[in-house]
């Protein structure tokens, strides 16, 4: 678990901050790498020279917003799931809309979890905390799926 690095791609700094706070509140202490636009995330995820590779032993988990400047969340998701190197990285879509079409589209593209940001703060923090709980028990596998014990 310690090896899992959280990649948070979120353009809204408020959201980003709230997510961080709630993760902390739910005792998630993993490293969080934040990007405010899609291109930065792409650069990080697909850069050959960074430590991000299977051999380094560091596992990743991506929290991805959909509406992003430069490159949007769909494109990032699509690219991640189409490349061998990144397709096993779990992707959790964390976004404001709960439009059923968006949801199914994301699942079609291969996202692992879809969480909408509820406007009710309790619900929101609850969701993030659940996520934190979820992340604390999740093991990022070599291939494909996330195994959750609960």
């Amino acid at each position, binding site marked *: 678990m310690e090896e899992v690095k959280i990649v948070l791609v979120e353009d809204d700094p408020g959201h980003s901050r709230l997510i961080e706070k709630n993760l902390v509140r739910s005792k998630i202490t993993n490293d969080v790498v934040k990007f405010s636009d899609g291109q930065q995330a792409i650069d990080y995820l697909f850069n050959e020279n960074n430590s991000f590779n299977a051999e380094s032993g560091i596992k990743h988990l991506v929290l991805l917003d959909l509406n992003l400047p430069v490159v949007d969340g769909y494109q990032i998701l699509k690219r991640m799931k189409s490349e061998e190197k990144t397709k096993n990285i779990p992707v959790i879509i964390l976004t404001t809309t709960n439009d059923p079409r968006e949801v199914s589209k994301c699942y079609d593209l291969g996202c692992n979890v879809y969480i909408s940001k509820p406007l*009710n703060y309790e619900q929101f923090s609850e969701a993030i905390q659940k996520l934190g709980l979820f992340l604390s028990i999740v093991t990022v596998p070599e291939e494909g799926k996330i195994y959750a014990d609960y």
Partner: protein
Amino acid sequence: MDQIGGIMLSPNELKAKIKRVFSFKKYYPVYCTAFFGLLITSAFFLFFVSFHYSHEVEQYRINTENVLIKFKNGIEHYTSLVKSLSGLFYASEYVSRDEFREFVQGTLIRNPEIVSLMFIPYVSSDTRNEIEMQVQEEVFYNFFITELNSADHLVRASEKKVYYPVIYVEPFNLNKELLGFNFAQSEVGLQTLNYSRDSGKIHSMIRDDQVRDPGNNNRIYLFYPIYNNGAAIVTKSERIKSIRGFVSCELDIEDLFDAMIRDFEIKDYYMNLYIIKEGIEENISRKIGGESTSNSTDQLNENEINRDFLFYSSLQIANNEIPIELMPTGDYYSIFGDLTANIILTIGILLTCFLSWYFAGSVNRTSIIEKIVDERTEELYKVNDYLKSEIVHRKEAEKKIERYARELKQRNEEVKRFAYIVSHDLRGPLVNMTGFAGELRSAITTIENSINTKIGDLDENIRQDLNYALNEDAPEALDFIENSVKRMEGLINALLELSRIDRKEIKLENLNMTEVFKSTLKTLSHVIDERKISVDLQQLDDVQADRLAMEQVTGNILNNAVNYLDPERTGEITISSKEDSDEIHYTIADNGRGIAEEDMEKVFAPFRRAGKQDVKGEGMGMAFVQSLIRKHGGRIWCDSKINQGTMFTFTIPTIVEKGENENGRSKDSIS
């Protein structure tokens, strides 16, 4: 370039050429008519002329034969005349000069063409002197039997075996030179007389008058023998033995023919007589009919003679034959003088002209018609061109409309997308607002908890302020923030819902609308009961529509009706339906507070609410309803009077377009 231009025809020249050729063809019937008309006319003309001609030839031949018969009869007249004269001599042994004169006087008067009538006795050399003396004693003292000498002078006849002298001749005064003339002087005369003596028949002799007017007049002499009374005259020798003499008639040939043709009916003939006198042929020409009878003045030119009308024959006068040639004069026959032929020719030409004129006229009429047809065709082409351009315009217009439709669709998409994006993106800040409001609350809670332990140490005033700020001001502010967020969320959700309705597919099924209204009223029953509203739900027509949509529609309308009633009077709601031609009208009428005239346009507009804002809502209800009704292909409108009531009417079409119609299955599943 010039050369090419010279060779090639310009379009106009080509047109002109085509027109020339075409117009020749056009007048072809006229030419044909003229040609064949003239051909037929000339054929008729020639046929008639040749028919007439051959008829004329035949007629001419018959006429000619008649002429010859007349001639023959004429000749017989003279022979019989001579024969009757011989009777005088058979009546007695001796005929005196006076008896002879008396006998022939009448004959001579009736036949003036007779030159002379003579008695010529047979005189042998033995009886010559006796005869000469006898005549000298009786009448003429200087009488001799005479003959012509080499100088053509009459002299006393030389010694001969036989003499045939003229003893009596009448009329004497004109012919006294003949008295005593010996006809036997010439070989021809002797032979002729001897033939006559030997045969007992009339013999003739043609020769000039040698005595009175030598070499000038053609004379024919008819000799008839007289034998001695009582003598046997059967054989030639008996005739020679008993010959007494001859009676003779002298005729001028021309006078003879003139006399014969005097009363002929046929006219305009030329007659040629070929007289052979002592081996020499002489031609006498006569014109029959007409005015001139003079010799040879009207002689036809050899070239002018129409051989078809040349008729040869001969006139037998005793032993002499006179060849005759008959032919018409120039006046006799003229092709173009023939009236019938001319009439035929004239009629033919006139008819041809008329027919040609008529055909030319009909061709002209045809070309007038053609011209009219051309004009009409031209007009049609123009109309056609106009229609073509019209079609082009239509197509352009259609394209424009298509483009507009596309643009409209695009815009619509954009608007929907805009609505979606806006609603989506608007939520982002709200998340922050609620999120950080929540953070603030937890921060205040933390502060409160921290302060509560030390609150007793603080000054009363400060403690009260702090208490007020933490427990009153801050929560109140946060409440306002959170309520505003909720309100905003409601609006955003409504907007999102509206954009979703447009995307949502409707599923048609057979709906019992009475039941739909009933179930909607049931959800509102507590309000209806509470406010004692009377609802009149009539039996409604069924319709094919989306169940959820209809529930939403009825819910919204009834909700409005219930919520906007006039509190001063008992609420009344009437729900009815009416089937129109291809749609069903559903009407929900209430006696509520009504909608002001100026507010009517807000009724169906999103986020707009009419009248007093005493009822919760985002103002999206009727916008949803309108959107849903439209999706069914129906309409919705509102009639209202302020303080009297409102009536909503919506229609659902009964005829569903096939493409949308999936109700067949739904129907089955329902039944």
